[in-house]
């Protein structure tokens, strides 16, 4: 039963073959029974979910056709939910019950989606393994000794284990795509500005973007239809007419021009077995009529270093708001105001968050701005220009999502080696482009992700290519044996 996709449930709900309450109970039971092995949820909102399900059933009975009506989903715990703890994976916000809803939560709830709970994540979305969460690491459903990726590791593991048919994620440097690849699911980071950042707790504001995570491209399209849209409360929200992101699903691939960035295949560190999976996926797409050519992204090697200036700089500014005064964690018995600030922050934040705040504070401190932040923002421009050139000749770019298979818990102890696990995902964030990961194979029982990067606002085409691939393959339908 739980193997059904989100789009499959939508059809069954609309046909009244299943009620939202039955569906919600099915997944709540699975979470209760199976999540102790994964730790993918921080908060389960069972009572509220059943009430939402009953409301959805009433709307369905009246013949309403809203696509997500009655469908159980989970929200990454970075999205503010009114009256429900919103921790962002941090001790700092452990006691924080949000007084308002994020726009994404508001939109999905208005469309009738049923929220089962809030998913675990790296603290403040800073991490690539979900090991930095104050609430403990999430485990990969394909092998519980391995990480699910991060920062949206809870959402990815929950969908991978079919504890929920779809979940939201956020992607600042790969935080939707890398965990999607590690957990064998489909995930999309939209064009910067598509999905409102209002009520999505800020990490690096010029890079952060919310997006859907589910079993299939079609599922992601349905979710994105609800999540995306102009929001005047987000100053960088793009003003464009509403779009149906499922419109390109049945577009044939004949004549599609796919670019393979040579830099994403030649760099040392790419596991040969992963490369083999990607090569096989390229053959599938060629078989459906796509044309493939090599393209160059000559500055892509500068992506990770540029990111680790820009992202920490913005993080240090954004996280300055956590001061122990207005909300969140406050230390015991502060001696004076400075002691209140420094101990509340020193005790409330974990090590990776502190590390990034310090890197950001340093690169923005007097005398260093030009040498770091300004330089990184210039590098960002040349990286974006490389993509512009590439998209003059091709329609989409194709690459591995990650250079390697899901790694063991504790395997990457030093920060820089952890940062390099996002080597293929970060460039799309710096350029603001839409990009997705979809399952394309298995090695030793572990899933491998294929990445597609599109031109600005080309999400419908990306989802179409992915959907066509998923018509020919069944990697997206596989569920780890322990959770089948």
């Amino acid at each position, binding site marked *: 039963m739980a193997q059904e996709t989100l789009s499959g449930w939508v059809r069954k709900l609309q046909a009244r073959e299943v009620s939202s309450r039955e569906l919600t109970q099915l997944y709540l039971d699975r979470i209760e029974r199976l999540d102790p092995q994964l730790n993918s949820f921080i908060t389960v909102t069972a009572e509220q979910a059943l009430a939402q399900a009953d409301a959805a059933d009433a709307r369905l009975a009246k013949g309403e056709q809203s696509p997500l009506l009655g469908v159980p989903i989970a929200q990454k715990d970075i999205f503010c939910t009114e009256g429900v703890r919103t921790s962002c994976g941090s001790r700092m916000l452990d*006691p*924080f*019950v949000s*007084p308002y809803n994020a726009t994404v939560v508001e939109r999905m709830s208005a469309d009738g989606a049923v929220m089962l709970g809030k998913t675990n994540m790296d603290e403040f979305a800073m991490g690539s393994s979900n090991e930095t969460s104050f609430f403990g690491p999430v485990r990969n459903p394909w092998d519980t000794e391995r990480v699910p990726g991060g920062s949206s590791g809870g959402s990815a593991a929950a969908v991978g284990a079919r504890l929920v048919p779809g979940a939201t994620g956020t992607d600042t440097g790969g935080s939707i795509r890398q965990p999607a690849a590690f957990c064998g699911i489909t995930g999309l980071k939209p064009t*910067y*500005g598509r999905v409102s950042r209002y009520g999505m707790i800020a990490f690096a504001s*010029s890079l952060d973007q919310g997006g859907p995570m589910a079993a299939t491209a079609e599922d992601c399209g349905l979710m994105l239809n609800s999540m995306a849209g102009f929001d*005047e409360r987000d*100053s*960088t929200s*793009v003003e464009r007419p509403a779009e149906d992101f499922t419109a390109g699903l049945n577009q044939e691939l004949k004549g599609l021009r796919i670019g393979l960035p040579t830099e994403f295949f030649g760099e040392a560190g790419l596991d040969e077995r992963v490369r083999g999976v990607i090569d096989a996926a390229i053959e599938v797409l060629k078989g459906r009529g796509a044309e493939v050519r090599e393209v160059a992204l000559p*500055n892509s*090697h*500068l992506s990770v*270093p*540029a990111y*680790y*200036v820009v992202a920490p700089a913005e993080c*240090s500014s954004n996280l300055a708001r956590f001061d*122990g*005064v*207005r*909300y969140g964690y*406050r230390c015991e018995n*502060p*001696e*004076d105001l*400075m*002691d*209140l600030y*420094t101990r509340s*922050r*020193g*005790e409330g*934040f974990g*090590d990776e968050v*502190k*590390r990034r*705040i*310090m*890197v950001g*504070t*340093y690169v923005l*401190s007097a005398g260093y701005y030009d040498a*770091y932040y*300004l*330089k*990184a*923002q*210039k*590098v*960002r421009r*040349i990286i*974006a220009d490389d993509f512009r050139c590439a998209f003059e000749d091709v329609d989409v770019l194709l690459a591995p999502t990650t250079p390697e298979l899901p790694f063991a818990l504790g395997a990457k102890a*030093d*920060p*820089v080696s952890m940062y390099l696990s996002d080597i293929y995902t970060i460039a799309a964030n710096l350029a*603001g*482009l839409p990009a997705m990961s979809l399952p394309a194979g298995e090695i030793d029982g572990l899933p491998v992700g294929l990445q597609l990067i599109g031109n*600005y606002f080309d999400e419908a085409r990306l989802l179409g290519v992915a959907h066509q691939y998923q018509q020919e393959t069944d990697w997206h339908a596989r569920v780890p044996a322990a959770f089948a």
Partner: protein
Amino acid sequence: MSVDTSEVRRIAHLSRLAMNDDQARDFAGGLSDIFAFVEQLDGAAIDGVEPMAHPLDAEQRLRPDAVTESDRRETFQAIAPAVEGGLYLVPRVIE
């Protein structure tokens, strides 16, 4: 670039993060590695390149200077660590 324990403590102070010498020592290695790693940017060909603040070069949207939010002070103060009479409480600042 390499940072020593005293430099880590200086940055931690600027960041308003309480940190003792042992903790600063633990952070020094990782921070040094990160600063060394980002030095790769020094080789970038960026002469005459405009820094990129927004991928779509969007400009700040303006709106009329009118009240759009309602007063929710009580709701917001209900989640504060310490309030009294509608004010947020902090340790005495002026003796």
